[in-house]
Every structure is written in structure tokens, then in C-alpha cells.
């Protein structure tokens, strides 16, 4: 996983609440057996109509095409557990989503892929959207080391983040490797279970 430390980039405003994972990547694109290549289908229904780009969609407009930060409204990523949603964002080039709230599974999935979800109050998100609308030279900085978003004006806005997840993200660590270090604790749990609940059934087909 690519580490996330600090990112200075163009931010795209998407002033919508309840952006569900079917909107981020519709189910018909989930037939891939790879993690890559989904960026072209990101926000398919919002982005295209009859095979053509919709000029009213933010990521089809300049200067937002190369945006690496997305700002949205409440409950971003609600719906299905498909990790194809952060994969599609990442493949398009989005490394950070800022919103007043995220659905739990999507929020989890972001961290596994080096995408940083930043939770900030609705009023702040609206302010950042205004910043983003200032044009091509207006860039936001998201600094995970110092846990601040820096506005084009230089004003810094602090955000909170889970320390363990921050650690994994800053260092690009694979959490399976972390858990593997606890293999003996897992084996101990299994042995105790077999002892205390010998009736616990296994699955054999």
C-alpha cells in the first residue's frame, strides 16, 4: 500500500449527501477480478450519458479533472461493502475524501487502500468547497502527519483520526502482516474455544 503522509492537490466539490457505492461504481462494473482499471467507470451515471461526458459533472470540468481530493456531504459511501468504490476513486487519482460523515464499511475500506477519509463538520466542508471553486491555483493541503487541512488562505483546520489507522497509513503498512505477529494469541484463542465449547461445529461439505 502506498503511504499517505501529506497531499497538496486540486479538490473537487461534490455537494451531495448519501453518495452511495452504486453511484461511485455501479454493480455491473464489479465483474473484474483485478483491483485496477475501475477509474474510467468512477461515478459512471453522474459522469456519462449515452457514452458522452456530462458537462455538468465536476470531474468533467476544468480544473477538476486531475483532482486528488474530493469534498462531499453527509453519509458518503453508504450502501454496499464493495471495495471497488475506493479502488475506483484511487484508480481515478482521488487520494482523499473530505465529508461530514462516512458509512462505516466504506470508511474502513479507504484505509486499506491508502485513501484518507477526513471527517469535518458540514459548515467546514462547505467552506472548503468554496475554496475549491476558486479555480486552478486553489489547492488544499491534507497533512496526515500534523492532522490538518490547510486552506488556500493558509488557515489550518485540525481533524481527528484513529491513531492505529494513522500509523498504518503513514507507513503504508499491510495490516495482515501486523495481525500475523499475533499468531500465537489466535492459536491460543482457538485452543481455549475447543476446550470450553467442544460442540462448536466446523464446516465440511
Amino acid at each position, binding site marked *: 500500500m502506498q503511504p499517505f503522509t501529506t497531499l497538496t492537490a486540486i479538490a473537487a466539490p461534490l455537494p451531495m449527501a448519501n453518495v452511495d457505492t*452504486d453511484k461511485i461504481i455501479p454493480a455491473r462494473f464489479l*465483474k473484474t477480478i483485478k483491483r485496477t482499471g475501475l477509474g474510467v467507470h468512477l461515478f459512471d451515471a453522474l459522469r456519462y450519458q449515452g457514452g458522452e461526458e456530462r458537462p455538468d459533472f465536476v470531474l468533467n470540468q476544468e480544473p477538476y479533472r486531475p483532482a486528488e481530493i474530493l469534498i462531499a456531504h453527509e*453519509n458518503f459511501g453508504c450502501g454496499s461493502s*464493495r471495495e471497488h468504490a475506493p479502488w475506483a476513486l484511487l484508480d481515478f487519482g482521488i487520494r482523499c475524501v473530505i465529508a461530514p460523515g462516512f458509512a462505516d464499511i466504506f470508511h474502513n475500506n479507504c484505509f486499506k487502500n491508502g485513501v484518507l477519509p477526513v471527517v469535518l463538520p458540514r459548515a467546514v466542508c462547505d467552506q472548503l468547497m468554496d475554496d475549491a471553486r476558486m479555480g486552478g491555483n486553489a489547492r488544499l493541503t491534507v497533512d496526515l502527519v500534523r492532522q490538518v487541512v490547510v486552506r488556500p488562505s493558509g488557515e489550518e483546520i485540525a481533524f481527528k483520526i484513529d491513531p*492505529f489507522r494513522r500509523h498504518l497509513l503513514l507507513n503504508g503498512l499491510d495490516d495482515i502482516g501486523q495481525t500475523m505477529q499475533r499468531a500465537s494469541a489466535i492459536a491460543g484463542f482457538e485452543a481455549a474455544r475447543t476446550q470450553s465449547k467442544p460442540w*462448536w461445529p466446523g*464446516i465440511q461439505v
Partner: protein
Amino acid sequence: MAKTLFDKLWDSHVVDRLEDGTCVLYIDRHLVHEVTSPQAFEGLRLAGRPVRRPDATIAVVDHNCPTDEDRRVAIKEEESRIQVETLEHNVAEFGVPYFPLQDIRQGIVHIIGPEQGISLPGMTIVCGDSHTSTHGAVGALAFGIGTSEVEHVLATQTLLQKPAKNMLVEVTGTLPAGVTAKDVVLAIIGKIGTAGGTGHVIEYAGEVIRGLDMAGRMTVCNMSIEAGARAGVIAPDETTFEYIRGRPFAPQGDAFDRAVEYWRTLPSDPGAQYDTVVRLDVSDLSPMVSWGTNPEAVLPIGATVPDPAAVEDEADQAQMRRMLDYMALTPGQRLTDIPIDVVFIGSCTNGRIEDIRAAARVVKGRHVAPGVRAMVVPGSGVVKQQAEQEGLDRILREAGFEWREAGCSMCLGMNPDRLKPGQRCASTSNRNFEGRQGQGGRTHLLSPAMAAAAAVTGHLTDVRELA
């Protein structure tokens, strides 16, 4: 300290605690399907890791598979076929138990878990699918995970998680005739909203929940994710134990008795504290239908389409306009005047034998309205066989319904069962998002009985008026 059902499920699975409170949580059952697993198995292969506990894992195909009889010969859509073949290759390579398409036990992953006795009280159950919350109905902690976590569970049989908050949803009163578990859960989502449960595990309790059969409880828990909750749970009781007794993968004989003894310790202790409490009296509840493009946009069938002009918040108003525009509805229009093109009865929400019986009761002696395509898709091969033994397929076919093979079908646009752009569907599924049932398709969520009523009249209908 008095513990909730969730606290007990959580505490009994903590393998280790990290400094910041993150837990290594042991997972008892891992359900695997073709869509969210290929990249996880590939990850194992690249790292040279085995599946730690194949005997705690079960795989099945459901999302991609066609529901026509020809599927036994071959899956025609190439990408779907590749995804199914990839799963078959992976389960063979890693030694994971698997119900193939030809096996009568094949079906939607959230139908077959409880049906086979694989999902049991007191367990932690995960699957790379958000509707894993369904299994909470047996008194298990069951939740959906992403593909990276699928790989994590395959490799370690654990997950790194922080505990959720406790929410109690107490459903009281008497459920009126013609009003079902689906209507109850739609009403709950309408009340708390699509993000109302974020960060919480919802425990459903109260006399109405106690009075539901297991199918109804599964319908309720299934849609917990639609309220944003991590999971839904219902305390196991005699109804649960009787449901589980004798199921193929459940403990048998003495082992079953010992298991029940343990399962009786799981319900929340008297005086247990919840972070959030919601109460809903359903004595006056009507059958519910969704009118918009998220599951909180629901109303009783007797209502009219809402008017955005009456909404104060600008963003809310814009969202409502967008929903009405997508759904092609007019403010003030009566819900019962909305004509429908397609009826879909099935899915992990309502694809059980009880749901098919409810539909058959409504359509018996009636016929599907002209121009309406109506389909019933059993949730598993076992459900299909049972329905056929009861003669339900005959009633439904004679009424003009299609009777199909088990799978996710038209709940999501991933297999040949899809809405065409502009088509309007009365659907027993769980999500009414834009394009969910097919690009440009319009979804009205409702109960199986209400879907059956819409099929015979050709428009949204209060099933109680057909009686």
C-alpha cells in the same frame, strides 16, 4: 456490569487488544462469494499464505449467476463466467468448502447461512457483502466487510476492529393484519434515516420482534445496513432454537443441547445500557413503500408523493427534487396511482419460503396485470424445492409469474435480470439507489405481499384492500 447482547458477542471474541483500543476479533464463520473474493485470494497467493481455517469458511456463487435453467449448461456472459470460474479455481486451490451452482444448497449467501445451520447464535460471521447483517437474526454478530478484510480473515481468521456503540430499537404494539417485518424495518429506516445507525450495532427488541418468525427477523436484520448500522442483532430465544434444531451444519443431539445452554446466556442482561434508544409503536403502521432513491424515502401506502417546496433545508430540497426527477414522480400524486412495469419477489431480504408463501396467498386465483413482468426468484435451491413441494410455483405460474432459479437476480444489476432504462419495479429487495436494479431503472421497495398485490393490479396497491 450488565452487558448487552452485542457486548457479550464482542467480548467473547476478543483475541487481543491494541493500545488504542483496536481489537483483534476472532471470526467464526466466513461466507465467500464470487464478486468480492477474487482479489483477496490473489493477495494470499502473492504472499504465499494459506486459508487459516477452511472449516470456518463456506463459498457459494450468487451475485453473477443467471436465474434461467440454461445456466446449468453455461453462463453466457463472459465476465460473469470468469468470475464464477475464478471462485471455483480458488476454492479448489485453497480447500474451501463450496456449494456449486448445480448443488441444491446453492443460493444467496445470506439465505443459505441460516438455512444450512452454518450461521449460529453466539458467533461472529462476516462476508464481503453489506447484507451480512441478516445473520444477526439468529443472535450472532454479523457484518459486511471489504475485500482487503476478506483477505485478512482468510489469512488470520480475525479482523482488526473497534467496538461499535449499542443502539436499542424497541418495537412495541400489535402488528396489524397485512403489515409485515418488511414494513417494520422500512418504518424504522424512515424514522432514524440512512445514517441513523452509523457506528452502532442495532439490537431489535420488543414484543413485535419477539413475535416474528425467523424469516421476519432476518428481513429486519438484513436492512440494518440501510440505516447505516454496522450490524443488527436479535436475542436468540425458543423461536431461534427451534429454527436451528436439525439443520445440517448445526450441532446435533447432545451437542445441540449443550449449545442451547450456552445460547441462553446471550440475551442482554437486565439493566444493560445502550448509547441510543429508539422506540416504535407499530399498532397503526400501514404497509410501507419507498418513493425515492434511498431507503429512508419511505411512506405508508395511503400517502401521496411529498412536495420539495415544503422542505426548508436547501440541500434536502435539492436532494428531494433530484429523487423525484429520477423516479419520474409528481408531488401530490397518490402512491396507489403509480403504475409499475416489473415485479421482483426475491433477494436476501425477502427470498425465503415464508415470503413466497405470502406472495402466493395474494395471487391465488388472480392474474398478473397486462403488460407487467412479474418474477419470483427463490433465495436458494432448498427454498425452491420446498415451494414446489407446497405447490406454490404452480399458483404463481398460473397467475403469470416467472418461476426462476436461485440467486441475487434483480436486486442488483450484475446478472441478466435487470431493469431497462425507465422501467419501474415493485421490488422486495433492499436498495432503491439510482441504477441499482439496472441503469435508469426505478425501484419501489415493499413487502412480498405488497409486491404481489402490485403485480395483479398493475400499480402500487394496499394489499389489505385485495383481501
